[in-house]
Every structure is written in structure tokens, then in C-alpha cells.
């Protein structure tokens, strides 16, 4: 059977499949559906310094093969997460990736410092790209200098490897990737959502109360694949790939594009069992395309990524 193991900074994964941040809460709800031990890792919802209520509702809208969301980083705050959510995850033998967000560099640094010390947290995912936070959020993700500065500061205080999660809402994704790589990022997560809108024809206003929202789901898969491919051509950094994955075939396509592991977001909403299903069908899928391990998933003529 094909070898599913992947070893990345901080993350020894039994398989390359993990739920994406914000689409899996802190794991509790999905633990009612299946044993979380099956997962390669769990990326938890963004943590901020203080509790946040997030944006007014409606917060989601459907789009062709996708959805918009503007949750607005609702979360109980880093202290509460450490106190009530992480202990629950301790009962599983699955590395946790803590997604960190904030409105200021100081907030990112504070949250990272606190959460990275927790033993269940094996890596930090620096969410510089959440488009739903008005103050700062979007700038961190679209300006290479700011992103690099933030990465540097966070790296200084982090006990764990830092994966920077890139925003696709940029002209030049490679420039962004290089900037955070030079600033010390241990890996990249890509992509976050693309900014989009839908309008309610009856109400004559945007469907999402926040007006714009982040587009996710299969609709953005070709954009995610392109960006991962471009960054892979330019850099050797580990990449956790995501954007519209719904099947083992999709996962393999991301690995081919240059990802080292993948995360599944929106598809969890349609099928709560999607992660274990993808994991289960991954070995036969790999074999069908002639691969005997995750590490072998390379484009023709390309060597291993690490």
C-alpha cells in the first residue's frame, strides 16, 4: 500500500490530509462524526488576543462551486482556547496547527507566544490573509514588506515552526512567498480565500452583511494550483496546499502542483466525512497514477521538493 507519511517542519504526519482552519472549529463537532485520530493534522480556527464576536450575519453565501464567508474571526480568544479547546485535542494523537490572527503585529506576537508553548500545538499557521478583518488584516497579506516584518516578529517568539498562510488577492504571489521565506517562515500555507461578493436581487444589497466575503471551494481550485505551482518553481519551502479540495484526486493534483500536504476546508460542510474519505481512498488513488508514496508525487522531470 502506498506510503502516506509526510514529514514537514514540526509535523510528522501519518497522512498529508488535514482540515483547513475555520472549517473545522476546534474539532469537537467533527469528533461526533468520526475518530479524529485518522487525520494527518488538525488546523484549528484562528485565535486572536481577545475574544471576538465577528461580523454581523449573514456571514455566508453560496456561489457556483463555491461559497463566500465573512465570519470575521469569531473566536473565544487565545487564553480561552488554551484553557478549554486545546485540552480536548490532547486526547488525540494528531498534531495541531494553530492558526493565528490579529489586527496588529503585537497581537499576532502575543497570540503566537502563548499558543505555541502548548504541547499539542506542533506548528503555527500565520493567517496574514484573512480578508474579513478591516483593521490591518488585508494589508499584512498583500504587502510583502509588512508580511515579512510580521513573520520575523512572530518567529522571534514562536517555539514552533511557522507556516505563513498567503492571500491569493495579490498581483505577484511569488514575491509574497519570497518575502516571508526570507523573513524566516518554515513553510507556507496557500491559499486563503479570494475576495468576492454576491448580491440579493430581492433586497438589492450584498448578501453578506459585511458586503465582501472570502471565496472558497472548488471554484478557486485552479487559482490555488497555479499559485502553488508558481511558488514551487521559485522556492523549496514546504507548502500546505488548499483551495477547493474535495477528493483524493484533487489532493494528488495539489501534490503534483507542488504541495507537500493539503488541507480541506469548505468540502467539510457538504460532507462532514470528507477528510476520512479522502484519506481512505488516497492509497488506491496514488497507486492508480503510479505513485507508491506521497513523496513520489512529482511532475514529470521534477525532483523531490524538500
Amino acid at each position, binding site marked *: 500500500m502506498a506510503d502516506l507519511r509526510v514529514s514537514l517542519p514540526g509535523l510528522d504526519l501519518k497522512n498529508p490530509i488535514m482540515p483547513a482552519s475555520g472549517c473545522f*472549529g476546534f474539532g469537537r463537532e467533527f469528533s461526533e462524526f468520526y475518530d479524529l485520530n485518522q487525520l494527518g493534522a488538525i488546523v484549528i480556527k484562528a485565535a486572536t488576543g481577545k475574544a471576538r464576536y*465577528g461580523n454581523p450575519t449573514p456571514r455566508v453565501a*453560496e456561489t457556483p462551486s463555491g*461559497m463566500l464567508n465573512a465570519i470575521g474571526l469569531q473566536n473565544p480568544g487565545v487564553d480561552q482556547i488554551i484553557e478549554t479547546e486545546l485540552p480536548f485535542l490532547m486526547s488525540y494523537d494528531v498534531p495541531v496547527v494553530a492558526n493565528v490572527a490579529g489586527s496588529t503585529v503585537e497581537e499576532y506576537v502575543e497570540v503566537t507566544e502563548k499558543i505555541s508553548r502548548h504541547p499539542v500545538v506542533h506548528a503555527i499557521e500565520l493567517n496574514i490573509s484573512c480578508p474579513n478583518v478591516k483593521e490591518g488584516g488585508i494589508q499584512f497579506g498583500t504587502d510583502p514588506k509588512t508580511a515579512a516584518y510580521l513573520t520575523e516578529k512572530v518567529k522571534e517568539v514562536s517555539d514552533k515552526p511557522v507556516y505563513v498562510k498567503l492571500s491569493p488577492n495579490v498581483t505577484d504571489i511569488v514575491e509574497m512567498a519570497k518575502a516571508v521565506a526570507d523573513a524566516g517562515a518554515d513553510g507556507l500555507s496557500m491559499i486563503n480565500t479570494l475576495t468576492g461578493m454576491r448580491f440579493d436581487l430581492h433586497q438589492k444589497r450584498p448578501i453578506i452583511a459585511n458586503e465582501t466575503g472570502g471565496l472558497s471551494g*472548488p471554484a478557486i481550485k485552479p487559482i490555488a494550483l497555479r499559485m502553488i505551482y508558481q511558488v514551487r518553481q521559485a522556492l523549496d519551502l514546504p507548502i500546505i496546499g488548499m483551495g477547493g479540495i474535495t477528493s483524493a484526486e484533487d489532493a494528488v493534483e495539489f501534490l503534483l502542483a507542488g504541495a507537500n500536504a493539503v488541507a480541506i476546508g469548505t468540502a*467539510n460542510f*457538504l460532507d462532514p466525512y470528507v477528510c476520512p474519505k479522502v484519506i481512505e481512498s488516497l492509497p488506491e488513488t496514488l497507486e492508480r497514477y503510479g505513485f507508491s508514496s506521497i513523496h513520489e508525487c512529482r511532475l514529470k522531470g521534477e525532483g523531490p521538493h524538500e
Partner: protein
Amino acid sequence: MMKEQWMEVVSNQPIALDTYEMTLHGELVSTMTQPGQFLHLKIGEGFSHMLRRPLSIADVDQDDQTVKIIYKVIGEGTKWLSQAKPGDQIHVLGPRGHGFPVEKVTGAHIYLIGGGVGVPPLYYLGKKLAERNRVTAVLGFQTMDAVFYEDKFQELGETMILTDDGSYGKRGLVTDVLEADMDLYYTCGPLGMLHAVTRKLKDVKGYVSLEERMGCGIGACFACVCKTTDPNDDRGYRKICKDGPVFPAKEVVLWQI
């Protein structure tokens, strides 16, 4: 416990203006015991529609293993549902959420106050309540053609129908006919109606069923939150899909700013 199933469409037909009643069959029905819970239905083929549609349980027949939903055709999802034929399979996640608490209610005079497609969950609720209580139904619809299930509610107790345009029953809003001669009320319908009802019945114990656009429908994504009235509430919010859709009327803020 079973949490999802490809259920079979037994029947699917219009029962009022743009309004369909669908009967689904499957073992999953055995888990559907709480009125006010909802089913989360997959729409379309494959991954073309990434969001499921929440629809309330309108009636359950445990002997036949069938569940009924009643839905109004609004957009793409409900249009797709309306085209389903007997024998088709529809993927159902659920029942989800917490419904109306009925276990401990006996010997009470209870009002069921529904508006439009907020009426369906009240029927299954009424059936459960009528066994041991006196039930009065006050149901508002836009117009005569939109009215459904009047006879069925009448079997449960006194039933008043109102229409906005007066084309059937009384003309007016459900709040026009509400008196505080009740022990308890349960209401489901458009936000404006819920707001008016809870204000008018502010001294009566009541439960409201809320709607919100949902992402996951299982409590993981925070799409469907509403605020709590109590500023000291430890979370300050509730998830409609998981903590609700039914809440004590006094617990949640109906109109956010």
C-alpha cells in the same frame, strides 16, 4: 448513531403557491424524534452546490420510516428539490440542532404561532403536544393560495388562519389575534413576525425558532450565530444550527444592529 443517509423520495408535490411537501424514506427517520430540528439537505450533483439547505422536519412517521418536509421555492436549491421525483435519492444530514422542548409540558394551553414556511415545524410539534395539552394554532400566510395544512392543524386544536391580503381567513397579522390567554407559545416564521410576537407576548413563556444562512450546519463554522440578550452570558452568542434553531424567546437578540 446514524447521522446521514441517502434517503429516497417517496413523494414530492405542490401543496400551495410555490410550496411543496416532500416525503423521504430511510432508517435515518428513527433518529428524528425532536420537533423543531432540521434536516440539512445536499443539493444538486457532486460539488456544484457547496452549501446544504436547512429544512425543518414537518412530520414524522416512525412506522413507515418517513419524514415530511415542506418548503417554498426560493432559489436554486429549493427549485432543484421541487424537481425531485419519487425514487430519487437525496442526501440528508441530520436531524440537526435542538428543537422545541416538549417532554415535560402537560396540561397547558399552548399557542403555535407560525408564518409562511415557518409553519412546517409547528405541525410535528403540535402533534406531539396535542397528546397532553390544549393546542391553539395561529397561522399567517401572504395570501389564500399560500395557505397549507389548515385541516391538519384543525385536528390538533383550534386553528386561526390569517392572510396579509385578507383573501382567506382573517386579514392581518398573527399578532392581531393574539391574547395572553396561554401558558406557553412556540413560534416560527419571518424575523419581523418573531419580533412582533415576542414583543406582544413578552410576559409569556415562549420559544422561537430562528433562521440564518448556514455553512456547516453542525456548529463548526460560526456562520449562523446570534447574540444573547444577557450581557453576562459566558459566550455572548448562540449557534443557530447547534444550540438552536429553537431558543427560549428571552435568550436571544432577534434583531442585530
